[in-house]
């Protein structure tokens, strides 16, 4: 009589299907299905060329410029800074040289690499996906193992379409119940990071589960998995289900016809087995999560919008107290101030975290019929050319423009400002991006992270604001 097979997590299933060889020390050479490449990748191509090598599987690579592209025009030659222009030009040259599919600056499919992967159907359940960017964790939302790598590893993947890895530990984060009105995926992930900390999932791959996660749209799951790295996780993933399948069906690079049916059969076998054991378990009550904002300089410095700036005197230990004092000094905040009273100078709606159509719809619903506060400069930067096109077809651009928002072209933009689009020293920015680190949006710039409707609410009221108040017509 044979024994029942050992129950396996989704990570274990994906891992074993991609194992090429295993070394004596336990590291595994993993096959990479999809390699996404952006305009920061020039050093990896240069390293490849120095060795006289070419990409092993160019058909598995897709490229688009996002980090260094301007969002006020689409002309590479007009990028003023020659070193930044070089990064974008290098991607054009390197991809042409090796026959790599590239969505260039004037292609309507150009956009942030983590937006276009799912959008094009390039990111599929069961795949291993890598990219030289820590937010590659985004693609785990479709049920893939997707993680960011450095430049040397990127060179390795270009050369061999494979990567040495030791299997990470597994963590399941279960969010039970239903989210309350006005509570979105961004609030869920900020609540998770506030709970477990920025190193809470270091060395782990997180699988998100539970009713609140099942209830998220694909866009919401992408937001959730995107910020897994902000909890230290190697990757985040959500088991594929009907929501995933419906999202992918008919997308340009998704399987078609008979291949689609075969793919569906494979994908349905991917979710973790019912009694699979995870190395760590975390559980949150979805109904208890409120709209969140960050007050400090780490994504774990997040609180419900109804709260106040915390007092370092109440910190658990001296280390934490010192970190809070430094954060408050940088942020120019006083303990006890109501978060919903903090005025803002800039608003940034976009990024690989919240630059998708659902995000723009949520922001536009708040902007509609309202006006950006006089002292505020507010930007909307769609995550891709196709997101922009869809938003324009729905008239969202007109809503934003009428309210006084700038409606811009696709790119990473103010999330990290590599293209030069930054806030000024001392400016306070309500941002839908993923990191509120010191200087992230420019030297001296102060970032408050939040969801897209909350950011739109900050734009029209001029201060951090509980979006539920506006949604209720207040």
């Amino acid at each position, binding site marked *: 009589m044979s024994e029942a097979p050992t129950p396996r997590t989704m990570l274990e299933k994906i891992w074993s299907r991609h194992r090429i060889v295993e070394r004596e020390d336990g590291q595994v050479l993993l096959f990479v299905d999809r390699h996404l490449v952006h305009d920061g990748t020039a050093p990896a191509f240069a390293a490849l060329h120095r060795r006289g090598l070419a990409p092993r599987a160019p058909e598995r690579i897709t490229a688009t410029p996002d980090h260094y592209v301007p969002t006020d025009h689409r002309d590479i030659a007009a990028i003023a800074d020659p070193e930044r222009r070089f990064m974008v030009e290098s991607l054009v040259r390197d991809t042409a040289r090796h026959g790599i599919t590239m969505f260039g600056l004037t292609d309507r499919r150009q956009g942030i690499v983590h937006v276009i992967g799912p959008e094009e159907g390039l990111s599929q359940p069961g795949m291993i996906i890598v990219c030289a960017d820590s937010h590659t964790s985004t693609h785990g939302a479709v049920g893939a193992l997707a993680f960011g790598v*450095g430049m040397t590893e990127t060179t390795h993947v270009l050369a061999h379409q494979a990567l040495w890895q030791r299997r990470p530990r597994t963590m399941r984060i279960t969010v039970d119940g239903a989210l309350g009105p006005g509570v979105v995926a961004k609030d869920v992930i900020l609540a998770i990071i506030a709970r477990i900390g920025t190193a809470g999932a270091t060395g782990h791959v997180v699988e998100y589960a539970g009713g609140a996660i099942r209830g998220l749209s694909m866009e919401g799951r992408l937001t959730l998995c995107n910020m897994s790295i902000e909890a230290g996780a190697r990757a985040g993933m959500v088991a594929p289900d009907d929501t995933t399948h419906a999202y992918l069906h008919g997308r340009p690079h998704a*399987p078609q016809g008979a291949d689609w049916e075969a793919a569906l059969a494979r994908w349905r076998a991917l979710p973790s087995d019912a009694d699979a054991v995870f190395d760590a378990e975390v559980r949150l009550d979805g109904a208890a999560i409120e709209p969140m904002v960050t007050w400090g300089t780490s994504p774990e410095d997040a609180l419900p919008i109804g709260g106040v700036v915390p007092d370092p005197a109440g910190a658990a230990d001296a280390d934490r107290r010192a970190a809070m004092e430094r954060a408050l000094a940088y942020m120019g905040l006083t303990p006890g101030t109501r978060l919903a009273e903090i005025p803002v100078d800039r608003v940034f709606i976009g990024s690989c975290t919240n630059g998708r159509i659902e995000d723009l719809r949520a922001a536009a619903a708040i902007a509609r019929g309202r006006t950006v506060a006089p002292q505020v400069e507010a930007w909307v930067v769609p995550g891709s050319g196709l997101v922009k096109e869809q938003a324009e077809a729905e008239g969202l651009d007109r809503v934003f423009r009428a309210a006084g928002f700038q409606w811009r072209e696709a790119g990473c933009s103010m999330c990290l400002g590599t293209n030069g689009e930054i806030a000024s020293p001392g400016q306070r920015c309500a941002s839908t991006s993923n990191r509120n680190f010191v200087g992230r949006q420019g030297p001296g710039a102060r970032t408050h992270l939040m969801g897209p409707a909350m950011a739109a609410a900050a734009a029209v009221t001029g201060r951090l604001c509980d979006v539920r108040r506006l949604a209720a017509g207040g």
Partner: protein
Amino acid sequence: MERFQRLDAVAVPIARPNVDTDQITPARFLHKPRSDDHGNYLFHDVRRRPDGTPDPGFVMNRPEYAGAQVIVAERNFACGSSRENAVWALYDHGFRAAIAPSFGDIFAANGLKNGLLPVRLPEDVVAGLIAALEAEPGARVQVDLEAQTVTLPDGSVHPFEIDPFSRHCLLNGVDELDYTGTLAPQIDAFMNRYGRENR
């Protein structure tokens, strides 16, 4: 990659947890070519005052720590962005080892592939080391990769873990890329089979 065997060097303490890679290398320097001295960008905005002059309050600017080759920090050092520039900045500035209770995963991997050895030691040992380095600026530590030990200024010896293959690569100054090239037939065979199974 440069070989790493033994190191006897001044260590500089960064008495903070969660130092992110945006601090180590601000994003506006990410497009700088590898041929630049990225040491100039290391902790750029915290090392200097707004007028560009060195901030005497920043620990690395103290003369006793000049020539430091070991950086010691609290937990979750170099978390955040995957930018390998963070490793380049530390390496170009002269650092060859980083000691902390924990690291950002991607940073640790990048370090191993660039001759910057990440050494994980227990939180209380690191806390003691940081206190010792602050009390006696310019104190030295020894990192022995062959023996997988760190010797602190007080003479105590602490073992550390490292992947055997990464250790082999560092000790011999070889990189993974060439090694993987010897497995090309296995990669070919895998891809043929995988391609058939996953149309």
